[in-house]
């Protein structure tokens, strides 16, 4: 089974600033990492690959330094990668982004399954996976916990969802897009050896000249939605330092908890 995984680079820390003019998140101010739920998607892909063979190709749209996230994904076991980077596609909303990713997937090759993380740690819209499926005209199952594949039924796949504590199996035809929940599995770690090997794995780079999407369909011009307001969370250091012996600290803590309970 050939699998595409869609990943996103998100800031390591929550300390992200907001552009007061465009209301966009200024990500250049923070170190990037692979969106945590996307690591769960990669792990699902790796398990399926071990079961069925084939290859796993990881896709991302972003600035040139998003190559780092792709190399890291390949250190986690993905075989190939594709970076879509072009100022023309930058700043797009979820629809414009999905169009670009769908076009890149079509251009790259034929895939039996496309996986993404269910939510990004920064934007957290949870929309791109579903929109990619829509652009490609294939089924989508959102917020899944795991995947079950039966080789006796090679043209279908079971997406396992958890709803109110119950597990539901949603069977859908392949190819399909599945969005994997954060924390649904334990992603394997990269090793020194796999990190070094990832440096030499294939990485294709596409611009919009390769994808040939109309300029008014991508980036800011291709985005029907606009962020009209955003704000940086206010707050501050609310921690109170307690001092004393362990016994005194325990009494103080208990009193504070009792006091808080009294407010409820």
């Amino acid at each position, binding site marked *: 089974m050939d699998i595409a995984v869609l990943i996103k680079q998100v800031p390591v820390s929550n300390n992200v600033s907001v552009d007061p003019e465009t209301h966009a998140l200024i990500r250049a101010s923070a170190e990037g990492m692979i969106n945590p739920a996307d690591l769960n998607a990669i792990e699902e892909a790796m398990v399926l690959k071990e079961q069925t063979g084939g290859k796993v190709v990881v896709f991302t749209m972003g600035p040139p330094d998003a190559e780092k996230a792709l190399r890291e994904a390949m250190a986690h076991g993905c075989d190939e990668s594709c970076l879509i980077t072009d100022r023309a596609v930058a700043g797009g909303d979820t629809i414009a982004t999905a169009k670009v990713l769908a076009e890149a997937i079509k251009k790259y090759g034929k895939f039996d399954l496309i996986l993404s993380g269910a939510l990004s740690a920064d934007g957290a819209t949870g929309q791109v996976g579903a929109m990619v499926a829509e652009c490609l005209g294939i089924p989508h199952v959102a917020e899944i916990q795991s995947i079950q594949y039966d080789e006796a039924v090679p043209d279908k796949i079971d997406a396992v969802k958890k709803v109110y504590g119950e597990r539901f199996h949603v069977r859908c035809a392949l190819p399909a897009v599945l969005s994997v929940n954060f924390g649904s599995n334990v992603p394997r770690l990269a090793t020194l050896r796999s990190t*070094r090997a990832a440096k030499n794995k294939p990485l294709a780079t596409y611009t919009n000249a390769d994808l040939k999407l109309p300029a008014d369909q991508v980036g800011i011009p291709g985005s029907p939605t606009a962020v009209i307001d955003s704000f940086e969370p206010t707050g501050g250091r609310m921690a109170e330092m307690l001092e004393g012996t362990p016994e005194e600290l325990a009494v103080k803590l208990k009193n504070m908890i009792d006091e808080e309970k009294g407010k409820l």
Partner: protein
Amino acid sequence: MEKKKIGIIGGGISGTCLGYHLSLYDNAEVIVFEKDTIGGASTAKSAGTVCLFDDSLKNRYWDVRLYGFESYLKMEAEEKGSAGFDKTGTLVVATNEQVEATIKTGIALAKAAGYSGEYITDKDRIKEILPDISTDNILGAGYTADDGYFDGTMISNTYAKKMQKNGGVIKTGVKVTEVVVKDNKVTGLKTSEGEEYEFDYVVDCTGPWSKFTGEMVGVDVPIWHTKAEAFFLCPPGKKLNYTFPVLKYPEFYGLRAGDNIFICKSHLSMDLNNPMHAGQWDPDKLPATGGTDDYFIDFLLDQLEVKVPGIVDSGLVSSWLSYRAEPKDFLPILGETPVEGYILATGYGGNGVIEAPAASRDLAKLIMRGESTPLLEDWAFKRLLG
């Protein structure tokens, strides 16, 4: 007795340890200014290995090592966890005769101070201590069960508390914006809060920031940043069934960190002329995690494949990059500068946790009584001039 007012810039191991040692004098008025949190910057990224006979500090400075080690043991005995001591023991591997001789001298010194130490040439015995090691191409190893590693952040906070008990003041979240100098003499400093303080002495304990701190008084502090690139490895079996000791090779060192293993290139193997190893950068731009270079992956893989093959296929849990502040001779810069009252306690490089107690003890005496010591003479700023 006339009070002496001392302002300390930086609340890492250097600043808090000096603050504590100064607070032991009844005529000292000490304020530590920390722009972030106590022991939270390069101190927090320190491995905290204070071993009885590794290669991090020459045997010439054995007393410095012993004073540091015993200061922390006493701290830990006063309140468990206050120095974050993990008594794992240390294995120092001899890869050539020169290293072997250094280890043997260190063992003799440790034993003279009442600690255990043995030089082992029986390779089966070395593998008993560290089953994942390769004993090919080594002469032997020094081992003691008495030491291990400490937690620089815990120690800094403990010194800060002890200093406060003695009347010292800590100001966190406060950045020093100007050191006031009149007629080439320090008179005080100004902070980001808009406050102005009068001091007889201002001490730069800012480590990797010293280059910038010194610029405030026109002192060119001759330090370079060397990259401390650290990786946390999850062993292939997820959990080791033995106590991973502090492991020292001339090229790198390792220690346990919970169920993981911390590995870092040794600071004495850094080449100040290699731009991949050293430079003068902005420590404020360091990310909290990550930031390591590809060359280090290659270096570490090559080293572990040959020397500790049992952990070479460990998972990479996380990594970080820190800057050590190193003068050209890899020794600290302590004491007076051409600006009267502007004192340095910086440049500890990778050895801040080891060296700070003895250095602070002597520096406090110099500031409070005007009495120098052989250690201060050795590590004086003037050695680096001209």
